[in-house]
């Protein structure tokens, strides 16, 4: 079960961060890479609602991904599916992944945890592997050590 977790502490109240995750303007402003503006950002942030983003890359190509909202709990939690329909990561064109955003209020604002999980093998593995975030953090430290050794 391939999965990655990132944690960011953001000095803003949860409602602001949640809005950046769930509005077209918000998404368009940060999701597209390389400081190029998104070409399309469509966000219907309710369970079953659609997500669509299309953006250019520096090589002149365009990439488009579609998703569906699976859980929407403002301003705490957002879960969506993700699949490339154009460009993107070639080896993932046939796959659906899952992106989870968890917002935890902290003194300075929000601790945002993003987990991107590959669903290629077995969707039930998600549940099976819950608690994976901690192990992943430890794992990446282990991997960093291993990478230096090579």
């Amino acid at each position: 079960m391939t999965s990655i977790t990132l944690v960011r502490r953001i000095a803003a109240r949860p409602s602001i961060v949640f809005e950046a995750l769930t509005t077209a303007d918000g998404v368009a402003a940060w999701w597209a890479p390389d400081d190029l503006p998104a070409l399309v950002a469509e966000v219907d942030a309710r369970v079953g609602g659609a997500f669509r983003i299309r953006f250019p890359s520096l090589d002149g190509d365009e990439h488009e991904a579609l998703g569906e909202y699976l859980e929407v709990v403002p301003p705490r939690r957002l879960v969506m599916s993700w699949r490339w329909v154009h460009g993107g990561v070639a080896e993932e064109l046939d796959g659906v992944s899952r992106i989870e955003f968890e917002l935890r209020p902290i003194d300075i604002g929000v601790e945002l945890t993003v987990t991107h999980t590959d669903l290629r093998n077995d969707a039930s593995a998600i549940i099976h592997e819950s608690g994976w975030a901690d192990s992943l953090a430890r794992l990446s430290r282990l991997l960093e050590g291993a990478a230096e050794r090579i």
Partner: protein
Amino acid sequence: MNYQHRELDRVFSALGDPTRREILARLEREEPLSISALAAPFTIKLPAVMKHLDVLSAAGLITRSKTGRTVDVRLSPARLREAADWLARYERFWSPALDRLAAQAEAKEAELRQSEAPNE
């Protein structure tokens, strides 16, 4: 399904267990280790350790080789490298995206605070 991906899934699920990560961490510090040396610090029994070694070996994370009467266990770093590369690729996408998200939210927060602040 993509072959490399299946291999990678096997690596990640092998790494999902704390005992197996501990085994890898020990091999990182000191290798080769015999199976009994590897098993020594664990409270679990030798057959259980052997099972973990089977999983790690099937995932391509370790190699076992016989020298005389002992089996030497070594790390096989190529697969770990692949897993690290996979993580790095996602990190390359997500890390700057979250930086932009944070910058955007923090600017909004500052703006809002200014408008909420009592007139000076």
